């Protein structure tokens, strides 16, 4: 019994609205700033047809959360096979039970209709603390998942509508922020409960059989759309790689290699040749790895509704024992935004070879700050994960400069307000701005790098800071001739005689009130040849102070008369001819902002002054 396309579309967009309402309920009732300010949580609606679990819709979602939730929901259904009832609410987090890392708690609420569990609204959120030996769960000394936090298989938080108090008490006994955990998980359940009501309303209005058939058509439609797009791309094998700077456990320059094979309307991503799993915490379990595969193609096909139908033409080969498919008990706390992001980058770089006009930076690189201390104003223990560190990774893409903070796949996240952050945490921000000449050059440039300075303020005693950096040696890729991002770094005790330049990690470094931490979050890659950027746009950048006249010459070959603030067309044409010839011989030339980053961090010696003529 087919459903008419209008009804199917109404059902589809209802599902999207439901997911949106679930996540809005969550962020407006959660107590942690991670959720109510930064929105680092995602909601989705899943569907079980009796055989397999599908993603129906997601909203305001970080792809690595919600696509990875698919394996979490599957793990829940498998574990509770034969033991699931109306009114149950499930919680799962373990990386080896379909999760990513222990910090990501996923609440799943089975909705029974006519006696069968059919729909599963779900919320996934990263908890600030999950017990275990290290506050926050991230440590370069972790070599096993037991060192990262409290593990659990799928658990029932509610059983047939009754709160299972013993489980909540157990979770709280393994968490340094027990009251926040309880409130935030309750908010997640609240979101799912709102989702349940809307789902029941939808099924009541159209009938559950109509909804199920509509979903079948919705999945098939997305599958067809992607298949026709894949079929339009040339058949072949496309290889690319992206390197992880460090696994914080002695490993460096770990290659994530992918070969995309397009065969008609099917695409396979084979990660053979990728680095072996790490003794440290960066390992990416399959749910996490696949979420980036799906995420990249979602970015390449912005008009196609994203659901499990969309995933069908995509296959992956994940070598067991590699860093993209580690064996237990591998540590995985760093999975999401280290290896995961390089997985996304490698795939995107391979796509450049057949769809250059669609590609661009879609992941983030890591510049990660955790602070642990006591807030003197309240006397309470405080864990602060600072979202302002990784915002600027938007890259250029054909027709658009990089703009704003997060790259597309992560832009469901918000930047927390600095004023609110200063109220909530014992910190004071001294700088928060774009920097000049740091945007990755391209015909369409990346967003400029973001520089911040912060110090502990009104903390009681020492605040310990763990700062992890990636993408300094191997920054975000440039595409189609665009330059790579400037790269990330941090400097603790900035401006003192005792500066500590962080190029990989500083773990639980003590800081005192007044000591400044500076960090640069490098922007995403540029797209296209910088020498093809319209000089008028370069002039705009100069007027906006995003590019200096020196940078305009060095990177873009545009000569600007500083007195008139106008482009000198002839000089520009001549300079560009010269640079074109020079760059033909040196295609990996270093952009000005990138050079300054390398010098500041000691990766490149101080320059001989060499001006482009």
């Amino acid at each position, binding site marked *: 019994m087919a459903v008419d396309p209008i009804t199917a579309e109404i059902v589809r967009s209802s599902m999207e609205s439901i997911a949106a309402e679930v996540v809005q309920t969550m962020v407006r009732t959660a107590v942690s700033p991670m959720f109510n300010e930064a929105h680092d949580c995602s909601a989705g609606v899943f569907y079980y047809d009796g055989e397999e679990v599908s993603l129906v819709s997601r909203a305001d979602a970080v792809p690595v959360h919600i696509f990875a939730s698919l394996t979490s929901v599957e793990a829940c259904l498998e*574990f509770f096979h034969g*033991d699931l009832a109306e009114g149950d609410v499930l919680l799962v987090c*373990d990386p080896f039970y379909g999760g990513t890392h222990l910090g990501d708690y996923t609440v799943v609420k089975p909705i029974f209709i006519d006696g069968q569990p059919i729909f599963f609204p779900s919320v996934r959120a990263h908890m600030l603390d999950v*017990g*275990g*030996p290290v506050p926050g769960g991230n440590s370069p000394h972790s*070599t*096993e998942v*037991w*060192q990262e936090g*409290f*593990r*659990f*298989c*799928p*658990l*029932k938080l509610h059983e047939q509508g009754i709160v299972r*108090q*013993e*489980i909540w*008490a*157990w979770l709280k*006994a*393994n968490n*340094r922020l027990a009251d926040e955990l309880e409130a935030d998980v309750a908010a997640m359940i609240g979101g799912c409960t709102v989702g349940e009501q809307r789902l029941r309303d939808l099924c009541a209005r159209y009938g559950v059989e109509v909804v199920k058939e509509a979903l079948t058509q919705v999945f098939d439609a997305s599958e067809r759309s992607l298949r026709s797009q894949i079929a339009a791309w040339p058949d072949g094998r496309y290889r690319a790689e992206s390197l992880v700077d460090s696994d914080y456990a002695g490993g460096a320059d770990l290659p994530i290699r992918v070969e995309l094979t397009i065969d008609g309307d099917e695409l396979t991503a084979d990660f053979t040749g990728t680095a072996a799993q790490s003794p440290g915490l960066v390992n990416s379990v399959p749910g996490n790895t696949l979420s980036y595969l799906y995420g990249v193609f979602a970015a390449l096909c912005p008009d196609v509704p994203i659901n499990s139908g969309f995933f069908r033409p995509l296959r992956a080969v994940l070598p067991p024992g590699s860093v993209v498919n580690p064996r237990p*008990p591998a540590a995985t706390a760093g999975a999401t935004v280290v290896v995961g992001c390089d997985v996304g980058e490698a795939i995107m770089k391979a796509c450049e070879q057949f769809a250059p006009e669609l590609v661009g930076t879609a992941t983030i690189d890591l510049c990660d700050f955790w602070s642990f201390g006591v807030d003197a104003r309240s006397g309470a223990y405080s864990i602060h994960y600072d979202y302002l560190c990784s915002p600027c990774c938007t890259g250029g893409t054909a027709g658009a400069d990089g703009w704003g903070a997060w790259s597309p796949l992560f832009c469901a996240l918000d930047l927390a307000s600095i004023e609110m952050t200063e109220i909530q945490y014992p910190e004071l921000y001294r700088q928060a701005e774009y920097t000049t000449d740091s945007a990755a050059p391209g015909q369409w440039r990346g967003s400029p790098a973001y520089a911040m300075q912060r110090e502990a303020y009104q903390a009681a005693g020492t605040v310990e800071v763990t700062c992890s950096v990636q993408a300094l040696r191997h920054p975000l890729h440039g595409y189609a001739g665009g330059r790579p991002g400037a790269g990330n770094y941090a400097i603790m005790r900035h401006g003192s005689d005792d500066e500590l330049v962080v190029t990989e990690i500083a773990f639980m470094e003590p800081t005192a009130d007044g000591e400044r931490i500076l960090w640069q979050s490098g922007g995403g890659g540029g797209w296209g040849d910088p020498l093809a950027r319209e000089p008028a746009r370069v002039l705009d950048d100069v007027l906006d102070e995003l590019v200096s006249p020196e940078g305009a010459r060095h990177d873009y070959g545009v000569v600007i008369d500083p007195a008139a603030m106008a482009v000198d067309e002839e000089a520009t044409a001549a300079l560009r001819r010269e640079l074109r010839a020079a760059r033909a011989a040196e295609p990996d030339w270093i952009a000005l902002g990138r050079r300054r980053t390398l010098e500041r961090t000691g990766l490149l010696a101080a320059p001989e002054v060499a001006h482009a003529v």
Partner: protein
Amino acid sequence: MAALETGQTPAERIELEIVRHKLAALTREMGAVVANSAQTWEIAEQRDFALAIADRHGELAAIDNPLQLGSTTFALRAALDAFRFDMKEGDVVALNDPHRGGTHVQDLTLVAPYVVDDAIAGYLVARGHMPDLGGVHAGGHHPAAREVWAEGVPITPVKLRRHDRPVRDVITTIALNSRRPEALLGNLDALLAALRLGRRRGDELVGAHGIARVRAALDHAQGYAERRLRAALRGWADGGYDGERALDHDGAGGGPVHVRVRAEVDGDRLRLDFSGSDAERASFVNSAFGNTVDHALGALLALVDDDVPANGGVLRAVELRCAEGRVVNPRRPAAVGWGPEHCGREVAEACAAALRQACGDGGGAGVGAIASPRPLVTFRPRARRHERTSLTRLQTGGCSAADGRDGWGSPHLLSRAELPSVEQWEAEHGRRIVALRQLPDTAGAGRWRGAPAVETVVELTGEELLTLCACGREIPVAGTAGGGDGGPAAVVLVEDGDGGGARDAPATVVEQPAAPGRIAIAVGGGGGWGDPHERDAELVLADVLDGIVTATAAEAVYGVVIAGGEVDEAATTRARAQREERNDGR
């Protein structure tokens, strides 16, 4: 309760006594099931477990391991706090929370209701040491731990079984947090089997004596223990007595850790207050309060002259207190992983020191030290994180003398453990024990001498990462009533090709490579009792012939001169008459 007792006929009272003994025997039978079927040496060999039977109110009527009387009681109370109105036949509650009256996270307690005629008649409790529950290192001993979460996963009361069926998500989660899930589940099965045995035997008892009599016996057992203890306390002089014992260091670079107790005897009541102890430490030496009570009661029961059964009746006559934030009552989430060894043993010795004074001329005063420091020495192969070998397991000796008896073997508080078998250990671990021997002149001297120090020497291949916390090197076991201290403990590393040169191991080592060679660990000697010059010369001769005391020390310390394999009576008399006042036992 008094009314019940006086209203009974002699025949009834005899029957109550019989049931009381049967209950105590049942806990030992349950213990045998656990020891014989558990997977891990901590339970099977060290016998680190407890089986108990409690009344409806959650007070223990019998327990097979007196050293876990306190913590088992508190664990049961915590389980009942959570589930008192939600316990059905076939339910089993599990918990390990050190900060709710527990010891350390490895000690898992299971509680099951005992139901007769659809009403709860009492509770059965089975408790055992689990091999690993997460944390930083396999086994849970991490000297630098600042929080309990570095040692493993706390488990607040949760139901493991409901209506006699497993609760899969709880059991799976517990096993998921262990590096040795099969061994953990095997131990769990052993504890569950003991509970089942307890139910069966309980039914037999009820069948033979009737539920009313069995219920009365649960109460009678506690009343009996209470009366015996109060009678003993009445024989002690009222007053306040102080005891103190120190641990060399805290395993994290901090100096000695002092446990202090003030014992107050007031008629037939005893109060023990530990508030004068050091503040809690940022390391694993803190003793959770349940553990503190365990060791305090262990000392009390060891010193009480009469045979006082270990059960809830004891707790009625003793009040135990400590301010929060002390090393023997740390606040959540303090680390407490080594507490059951140190500073638990320091708690026991401090209490013994105080209570010995209270005993006066009573029998308890004749008991020497009841524990001895045991260095933590473990290692694992570099490549395999889950395999942890404990050399602490091999350590024996350290028993102190008592009035009328030399020390032999393990001290009182450690005497429950089986002595290890060298052959079995070598077979299990595929490596050689080079030597296991007594060291001469390390027994605390006295009229009755302590046990000599025992040294174990094990090969190291160079593939090991060592974790150790040495103790007892600076502060040996004390002598009593004029007896000498035992020889100090030792942890010594010898590297191959080092010309045989040995060096003392650092006080604390965490996961450091060891060079190929050998490691020698000596448990210190036990303390002596009484004046060495009053030791029977023939006994000294026997010590010399056994290699426990050298002929030189026989003369220097004991004043016994030995010549030609015999005591030279005359020379001995002269030496003893001439001696200078010396109290060292070395």
